[in-house]
């Protein structure tokens, strides 16, 4: 058996495998993304004190601790029949903006951006942050580090530790802000707004002014015509922290708008025998296999899903950029998977502008930050994690212990779409058995755009083991395997 090893998917850790099957001409017959699943979170949660859930769920995976933390805190608000005071909601949302700032910067500059800034065909050893620094310069590198750290610091000021937030409680938060902290956050936020604007300009200069990149973005292998989903405010503008869940169709019109309480009437999960991942779909449309179009219930979440599922951004600069993106790419919805990167930067700008609104709000230093809880019951909560819609649902017993817990995480919501994107990209870029590092990178790009986080999608081991790609010939004989590390975990 001939096994070729290609240095791989260093920016795509997680615990997954892409299997690519070639036909007798060497073209792609099919490609699957397989993710081993760790089960048992729901069981692990049972019997625990409900108020511990924001801490416990923030440890499911190191990527979105803040998203889990607040999806959980909101679920507890609901389960204990309490509304947090308005100041507490604002403090939570401000912290949430800090999380979006560092998370989106990290993805664009470290993980997704190298494909564009350094180039999709550049050697793997250069398609990383070091290559970005090489190309863009040390000064820009320093700005990237600085602003990512600002996002972390804003989160840490509000939440205790950035990676282990401890502030979210049923009915509010445990810690307010003092005037010095407000000043500090305001200063960092101002700098972050400028950096977000700079990032969009960089995207404009490097990506949009490069005809080859625009061609790549709009090329067939990267298009997916699914439904889109995201949380919106009462004006149908994107909201990360709170609102109704809106689904738009292939024409960009509203298909559904629902409260998270109704999620199990709207979303069902399909199981495939070759994957541990569940594939959510819209119940009213139904499961029609891994296909797109109006008859298939598969939807997309995450930056592009959110922008497609909304009617704009709630802040002025981001809204202008929102309009520009849809004008440039032919109107809403945009179906190009690679436009996720653009959408992510528009969201970065929104997060910085929204953070400024919140930190300047006179209520932000209020000390009325928690309301007393009521009797325990059932609760539902939704937030937009950086990578998409995140739903928590708990049933509490009379003593306030967890009786049942169910989570639908962002990458699970995207499972069908990611699988199709990988398949379509493989079909589009591999032909006549010719596979090299640059070609496989273009398959990975389809995957990377979603910024998937398989750690919690499969409730699995966070990180370490890189994605592996296996290529098989028509006799199902393994031709190539991509794997690099001898050390895993």
């Amino acid at each position: 058996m001939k096994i070729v090893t290609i240095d791989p998917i260093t920016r795509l850790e997680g615990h997954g495998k892409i299997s690519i099957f070639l036909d007798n001409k060497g073209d792609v017959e099919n490609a699957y993304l397989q993710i081993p699943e760790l089960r048992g979170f729901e069981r692990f949660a049972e019997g625990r004190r409900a108020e511990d859930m924001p801490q416990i769920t923030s440890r499911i995976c190191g990527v979105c601790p803040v998203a889990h933390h607040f999806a959980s805190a909101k679920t507890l608000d609901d389960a204990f029949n309490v509304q947090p005071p308005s100041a507490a909601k604002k403090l939570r949302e401000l912290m949430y903006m800090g999380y979006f700032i560092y998370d989106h910067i990290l993805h664009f500059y470290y993980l997704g951006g190298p494909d564009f800034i350094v180039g999709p065909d550049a050697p793997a050893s250069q398609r990383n942050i070091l290559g970005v620094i090489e190309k863009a310069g040390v000064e820009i590198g320093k700005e990237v580090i600085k602003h990512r750290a600002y996002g972390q610091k804003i989160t840490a000021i509000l939440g205790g530790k950035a990676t282990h937030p401890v502030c979210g409680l049923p009915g509010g938060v445990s810690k307010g802000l003092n005037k010095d902290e407000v000043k500090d956050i305001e200063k960092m936020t101002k700098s972050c707004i400028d950096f977000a604007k700079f990032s969009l300009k960089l995207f404009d200069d490097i990506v949009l002014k490069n005809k080859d990149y625009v061609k790549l973005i709009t090329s067939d292998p990267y298009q997916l015509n699914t439904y889109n989903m995201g949380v919106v405010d009462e004006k149908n503008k994107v909201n990360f922290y709170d609102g109704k869940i809106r689904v738009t169709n292939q024409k960009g019109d509203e298909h559904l708008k629902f409260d998270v309480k109704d999620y199990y009437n709207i979303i069902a999960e399909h199981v495939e025998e070759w994957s541990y991942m569940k594939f959510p779909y819209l119940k009213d449309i139904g499961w029609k296999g891994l296909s797109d179009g109006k008859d298939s219930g598969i939807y997309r979440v995450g930056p592009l899903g959110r922008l497609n599922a909304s009617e704009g951004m709630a802040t002025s600069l981001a809204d202008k950029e929102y309009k520009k993106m849809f004008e440039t790419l032919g109107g809403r919805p945009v179906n190009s998977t690679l436009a996720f990167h653009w959408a992510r930067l528009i969201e970065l700008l929104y997060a910085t502008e929204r953070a400024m609104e919140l930190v300047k709000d006179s209520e932000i230093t209020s000390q009325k930050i928690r309301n007393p809880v009521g009797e325990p019951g059932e609760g539902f909560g939704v937030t937009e994690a950086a990578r998409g819609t995140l739903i928590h649902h708990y049933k509490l017993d009379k003593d306030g212990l967890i009786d049942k817990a169910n989570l639908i995480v962002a990458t699970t919501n995207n499972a069908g779409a990611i699988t199709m994107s990988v398949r379509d990209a493989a079909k589009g870029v591999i032909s006549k058995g010719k596979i090299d590092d640059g070609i496989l990178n273009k398959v990975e790009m389809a995957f990377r755009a979603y910024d998937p986080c398989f750690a919690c999608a499969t409730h699995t081991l966070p990180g370490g083991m890189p994605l592996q790609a296996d290529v098989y010939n028509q006799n199902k004989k393994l031709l190539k395997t991509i794997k690099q590390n001898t050390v895993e975990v």
Partner: protein
Amino acid sequence: MKKTIILGIGNPILRDDGVGIHVADELKKQIDDPNVKIDSAFTGGMNLLDMIIGHDRAILIDAVKIRDKKSGEVNMFKLGELSAFHTANPHDLSLPQAIEMAKRLGETRIPDEIKLVGINLGELPCDFGENLSPEIKNAVPKAVELVKEEVKKNYE
């Protein structure tokens, strides 16, 4: 005197994956030294870098999976000996990458010595829980001793 940071790395609710944190907790009971800071981390390369910056040396304790080594075996490695250090964060850089990047940007406060005490897992944990398997639990004292010996070098 060298300023040392000891970091237990892992996911505290993912059974054997959290072994580094168990070792760090034990070390906290046994080491009382103003030049030694002991902490735990469930995070990726960029945040790990922030945590070790400013120290003369760093000792990281983590679960590893190395082919040809037995489950529960404890080994010490230098940074660079392994192709990947655990990043608890699938959306992040590995620690060696983060360090290389920081050096490229002119960072001078990176520890001169970075070592990893790796506890080898035969099987990757596949469900949630706070307890270690017996085999990995037995490895904790070995890892503790190895770290303590390393710390003693401060005084040689």
